[in-house]
């Protein structure tokens, strides 16, 4: 309750300051619109359906792209965590590729796939797949030695050992990797949408810029922010809490 109160006060002050700065007309309203203008832009955008459409299209893309990344990341992660050769070669490559900002893949994607959805999916996958693969490998390394030993001793081997022992044993670490992968996918999506004309939230952001409409830019920014935060809270925090509770780990605060 105390924390909620703090935040209410904090955002009230922030909003007040914004309102004050806008009203003071230090900068023209097309550069610093008042909170009310942004609210209006938000209201209009939802009312004429453009924001809804943007949300729907962007969400479908990011979910599909993310699931693709998870599957491919799993395959890669499995490869590097089971073969010493792949770990020393492909594993190293993935580590360096992971540090590449996802937007760097966009020119390549456009040349290969044109200004299409395919190019967007490509950027999302390249943005999040490597981090998922790497986290899968590091979570395998974090399993206490006794766990696979007990599994083998009780008759699990090969695919059974992987599915019933190694995978669940690495889940606590894996969940944070999946969460990070999601964050990367979300960023990659918005960046890609800003360049490729495609009706998503990223494009709405750019339309705001093209029309010199700062209120729309800020309104879409808010939508993107809230959406990313909500999914983190609803999906990934929940998942983390459940895993932590079941595994008996300390709850992340």
């Amino acid at each position: 309750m105390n924390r909620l109160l703090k935040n209410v006060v904090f955002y009230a002050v922030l909003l007040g300051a914004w309102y004050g700065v806008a009203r003071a007309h230090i900068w023209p309203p097309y550069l610093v619109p008042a909170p009310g203008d942004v609210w209006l832009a938000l209201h209009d955008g939802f009312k004429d359906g453009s924001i809804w459409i943007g949300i729907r299209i962007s969400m479908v893309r990011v979910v599909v792209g993310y699931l693709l990344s998870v599957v491919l990341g799993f395959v890669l992660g499995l490869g590097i965590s089971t073969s010493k050769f792949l770990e020393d070669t492909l594993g190293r490559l993935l580590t360096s590729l992971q540090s590449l900002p996802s937007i760097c893949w966009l020119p390549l994607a456009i040349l290969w796939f044109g200004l299409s959805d395919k190019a967007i999916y490509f950027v999302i996958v390249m943005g999040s797949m490597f981090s998922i693969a790497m986290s899968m490998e590091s979570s395998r390394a974090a399993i206490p030695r006794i766990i696979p030993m007990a599994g083998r001793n009780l008759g699990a081997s090969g695919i059974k050992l992987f599915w019933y022992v190694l995978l669940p044993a690495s889940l606590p670490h894996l969940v944070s990797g999946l969460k990070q992968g999601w964050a990367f996918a979300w960023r990659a999506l918005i960046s890609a949408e800003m360049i490729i004309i495609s009706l998503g939230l990223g494009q709405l952001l750019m339309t705001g810029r093209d029309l010199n409409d700062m209120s729309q830019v800020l309104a879409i920014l808010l939508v993107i922010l809230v959406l990313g935060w909500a999914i983190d809270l609803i999906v990934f925090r929940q998942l983390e809490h459940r895993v932590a509770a079941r595994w008996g780990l300390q709850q992340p605060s």
Partner: protein
Amino acid sequence: MNLPHEQPVAETMRLVTNRRIVPHNARIALRGVEQSFAATKGPRVLALDNINLEISPGEFLCVVGPSGCGKTSLLSLIAGLSFPSRGQVQLNNKPVTGPGTDRILIFQEHGLFPWLTALGNVEFGLKMRGMKKVERRERAMHHLQLVHLEQFAESYPHQLSGGMRQRVAIARALATEPRVLLMDEPFAALDAQTRDLLHDELERIWTETSCTVVFVTHNIREAVRLGDRVVVLTYRPGRIKAEFRVELPRPRHIEEGNVARLSARILGVMREEITKSVEAEYTR
């Protein structure tokens, strides 16, 4: 070679589920076993050297020795989780080629799967064997009852005390109805009272199931309390230094005079090795 009293697996399984008796036809033999490891620095470390040991079916064998004598290596060799550098480990005159659910290890840290309930853990070995859900649930409950934990079937390991976890580990091992139970200092991390209780429980279970037990510990009293025979290993490399047959009537108690007297004798033999182990620790 097949011993005449050895039955085909399917037959054995049926027998087991009907009578809840583990067939005790597991004769373990270590012949000239040597085990060495690559050290991070310097030459290979010889952990076990020329171990010759016969373990009779249904025997409760305790292995004692100072830390670093290769006790754990010995168990892992019998379990088939590692292989000797020289010599052979045999089970019923056949060389051990890998892990099998006829030989189950129980570790010092319980090694339970934290994502499964107590019941789920006990069921695990049966599930791996492909047993149907209803049947394995029933069997797992039976084994939880054996360690008096049936009311904790739905608890996760982190919700249980150290002693309870170790009992789940024992139930999990017993559920697969192993012929050999390999225990690696299983009670070392427990308080004295819990350990005494688990000694009683283990002894009772061993009598009821008549499986072979190889029990590794550095606690001599514990070895005398439980074992039919106590084998003393030397400090690095582990060799068999002495063997003691414990012919005290069961059930024994750890504070008993006879147990204490025999323990003192064994300690006399072992002292030299303990000194070596301690010196090695200090001069490292």
